């Protein structure tokens, strides 16, 4: 009779290290907030006290335009009467080059979202299973297990899984500071590069997201040039994740790396790669349209062979090809999307301004980088986690703590705004207002109405006790918020 412990050990031995480990990163706090939301999701009528999801970077503001187009264009579907004559051809189409019209339409769309200042070659467009699949494929192409990519912090937590989990590649953080608006400086890059070498991690590339997730900022021309010059000089790859390219609004302008390389003499284009997707710009994450655009012929060739592991459904390729070829629709969509993003952003920022809550000035992306450093008891990540738990479980807003983005400084939170309607935004702002006024009451001296003040203080204290018991519940398998997976040697050295 085999004991349970031995059986479990045997079980683990039968699975690979990749499967039995935590490389998927889902024990991070990033996902715990999602779980809280899933257990009690907000609904204006059915669950008005539920958790409002502000941790999901989705663009839901222009779904009506898309829906209208699909209804008005039944020929874009291969299943309707108008499109079924194409059904069999499309259903058997599994060529990893992708439908030519799909590649052409995506190339054109990428040009439009860069204000037609650059041209994209449809033959360099390679499909992947969303940007998730694209990043993993690029890592497989550019790096061997044990190699490293430099990544400026704060960065999208999913990179820990996408770039590292099955590839064995390391991520080496490039520390950015709030003191200069989280700019990526050459000093920080050099510093990170040196540290990697000292830790015996061969650096193979630099991955940057522009516009930035979670900051919502765009890189200016000078900064972009300095990044290209840095990677060019070090002879390492530059991977530009431009998934939020069309989400700039207001005064903000998006400059693609594709544009900048035209202006740099002796730029080795074999080192330049762009990751893209339609999940954010068009709000179509369910359709899994990921794109790798590389200037390196060999990478295009091999990534294309690897795309067999995550091709875009031909049914979807065809729909997208039709939709993106409708230039009038695309122009209207991009224009309207920017206006609606700007409006929702303004609503949130006006509300936060009124409450004296700071946020990083930025005009891109589907989120805000909110500054709650002054609400921390101590300038530590433990304090940030404590505050975050209060926000999730008592204020009932699922926002994402900066630690989960590997932010160097505690107290920052990413707050998404494009995945909700106006009423929900109002409710969220109201809850923040109530919360901050409660905090103000807390810090008010006990004066004219001592009984009331004492009572209020009691409430806050009991809330605190609640948060401690929550901590115990989450301690099982909960890693420190800024290292959701066993950290690379470099991160350990820093902390």
């Amino acid at each position: 009779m085999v004991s349970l412990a031995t059986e479990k050990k045997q079980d683990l031995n039968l699975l690979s290290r990749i499967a039995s480990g935590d490389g998927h990163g889902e024990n991070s706090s990033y996902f715990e907030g999602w779980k809280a939301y899933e257990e009690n999701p907000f609904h204006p009528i059915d669950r008005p006290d539920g958790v409002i999801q502000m941790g999901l970077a989705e663009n839901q503001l222009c779904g009506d335009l898309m829906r209208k187009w699909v209804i008005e264009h039944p020929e874009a579907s291969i299943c309707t009467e108008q499109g079924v004559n194409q059904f069999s051809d499309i259903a058997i189409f599994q060529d990893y080059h992708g439908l030519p019209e799909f590649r052409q339409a995506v190339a054109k769309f990428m040009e439009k979202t860069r204000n037609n200042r650059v041209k994209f070659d449809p033959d360099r467009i390679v499909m992947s299973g969303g940007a998730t699949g694209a990043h993993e494929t690029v890592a497989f192409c550019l790096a061997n297990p044990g190699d490293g990519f430099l990544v400026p912090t704060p960065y999208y937590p999913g990179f820990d899984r996408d770039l590292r989990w099955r590839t064995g590649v390391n991520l080496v953080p490039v520390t950015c500071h709030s003191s200069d608006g989280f700019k990526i400086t050459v000093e920080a890059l050099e510093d990170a590069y040196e540290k990697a070498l000292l830790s015996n991690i061969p650096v193979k590339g630099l991955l940057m997201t522009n516009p930035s997730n979670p900051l919502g900022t765009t890189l200016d021309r000078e900064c972009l040039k300095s990044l290209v010059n840095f990677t060019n000089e070090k002879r390492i790859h530059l991977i530009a994740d431009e998934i939020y390219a069309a989400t700039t609004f207001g005064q903000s302008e998006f400059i693609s790396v594709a544009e900048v390389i035209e202006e740099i003499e002796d730029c080795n284009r074999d080192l330049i790669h762009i990751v893209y997707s339609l999940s954010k710009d068009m709000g179509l994450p369910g359709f899994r349209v990921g794109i790798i655009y590389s200037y390196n012929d060999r990478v295009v060739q091999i990534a294309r062979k690897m795309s067999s592991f995550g091709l875009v459904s031909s049914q979807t390729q065809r729909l997208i090809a039709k939709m993106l070829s409708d230039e009038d629709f695309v122009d209207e969509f991009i224009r309207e999307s920017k206006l609606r993003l700007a409006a929702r952003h303004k609503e949130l920022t006006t509300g936060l301004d009124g409450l004296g809550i700071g946020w990083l000035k930025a005009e891109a992306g589907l989120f805000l980088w909110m500054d709650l450093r002054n609400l921390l008891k101590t300038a530590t990540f433990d304090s940030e986690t404590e505050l975050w738990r209060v926000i999730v479980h008592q204020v009932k807003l699922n926002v994402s703590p900066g630690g989960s983005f590997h932010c160097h400084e505690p107290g920052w939170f990413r707050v998404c705004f494009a995945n909700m309607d106006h009423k929900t935004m109002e409710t969220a702002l109201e809850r923040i207002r109530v919360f901050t006024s409660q905090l103000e009451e807390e810090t008010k001296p006990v004066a004219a109405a001592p009984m009331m003040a004492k009572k209020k203080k009691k409430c806050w204290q009991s809330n605190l006790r609640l948060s401690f018991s929550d901590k115990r519940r989450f301690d099982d398998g909960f890693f420190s918020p800024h290292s959701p997976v066993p950290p690379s040697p470099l991160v350990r050295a820093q902390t």
Partner: protein
Amino acid sequence: MKQLSTKVTSNGHGQDSSYFLGWEEYEKNPYDEITNPNGMIQMGLAENQLCFDLIESWLAKNPDAASLKRNGQSIFKELALFQDYHGMPEFKKAMAEFMEEIRGNRVTFDPKKIVLAAGSTSANETLMFCLAEPGDAFLLPTPYYPGFDRDLKWRTGAEILPIHCSSSNGFQITEAALQQAYQQAQKLDLKVKGVLVTNPSNPLGTALTRRELNLLVDFITSKNIHLISDEIYSGTMFGFEQFISVMDVLKDKKLENTEVSKRVHVVYSLSKDLGLPGFRVGAIYSNDEMIVSAATKMSSFGLVSSQTQYLLSALLSDKKFTSQYLEENQKRLKSRQRRLVSGLEAAGITSLRSNAGLFCWVDMRHLLDTNTFEAELELWKKIVYNVKLNISPGSSCHCTEPGWFRVCFANMSEDTLDLALKRLKTFVESTDCGRMISRSSHERLKSLRKKTVSNWVFRVSWSDRVPDER
């Protein structure tokens, strides 16, 4: 070159094999009845193009599913945002029930144990990542689908070791072959993590017998390793026999809900049975919670488009459609296979008696100059470049005996098939062997028929129509 990974600089993608080169040649000069009647006929592509009319007629009768509506209302926005890697519950339920129907409803599939993937290409790779470390080995019976070299090994670093099967017993898996493969792994200091079989087999076109399945389950039990059964062709069974899944065997051996059952995994896809390879619908079915959990997370790298999930959940939930489809599909495949087999016989060519799949495993050993793989490649080149038929040489499927070829029959019209057979007959007649045939054609056909009958008799003796075969 150091700037790229070894995965890029090596040829682990396996696409320099003749299997893929034949496809490339086809791309350069594809046959078309009207515009290119002398072009190359594609017989190297295992696609099922026989039943699109059935699906198209279903679409015409189901406008809601066809236009992404529910109760007349567009649900486009909901679908556009659905990216939950658990997949659509209604789709997984429909897949589970379809898989049950294909197995005569003798076994049940729990939708919660299904993990969706972007085609079985992705499903097989994901399972490898879950079960094997780089350098670990899986045993595969030869001949096997050439794509496995890429899918199982390329990015995972896993190894494949062959379980040698031979024509002497119809390429069936024997205990001796299993043991020999395992010992070979030990000699090479490779840790064996499991066995992977395709059932029905690609390229053989035969379903595994109950004897073979029992052997496999016993083998993995004794070695404490995994068994992956790629059942992608399960709905293409057209022979007299019923399709026996590894799940049937677990049930019959009363091994359900045991530790062994947690090491048996099924891979499936809608690419062959429904003829929808473009839609990228693959699935892993596992009784091991940890594998389901890990594979589900990995499916983020290759989810099924929500648009496709919605359409297919409606299609597969229509039980009237699925039962009619499966029956008609089998009829058409059987008829097409017969057409190919009799056409080959007329050219003096026999094939392994098949009862499933979209292809036949054809015996052209008598056409080789010498019993070598060089001679096989020479013959293949003649057939590709002179006869203009793209068929797949056995060596690309790692067959241990030269002279066997996989010839597909379900990806073309009857007329095209007839033309291909005509070209082949002309070619054979022009060779020395062909001249022999025409001189003593009567004698030869008589002996061919005998051979065919004895093949049939041989396989029937192993089938489960013999009641005490357990």
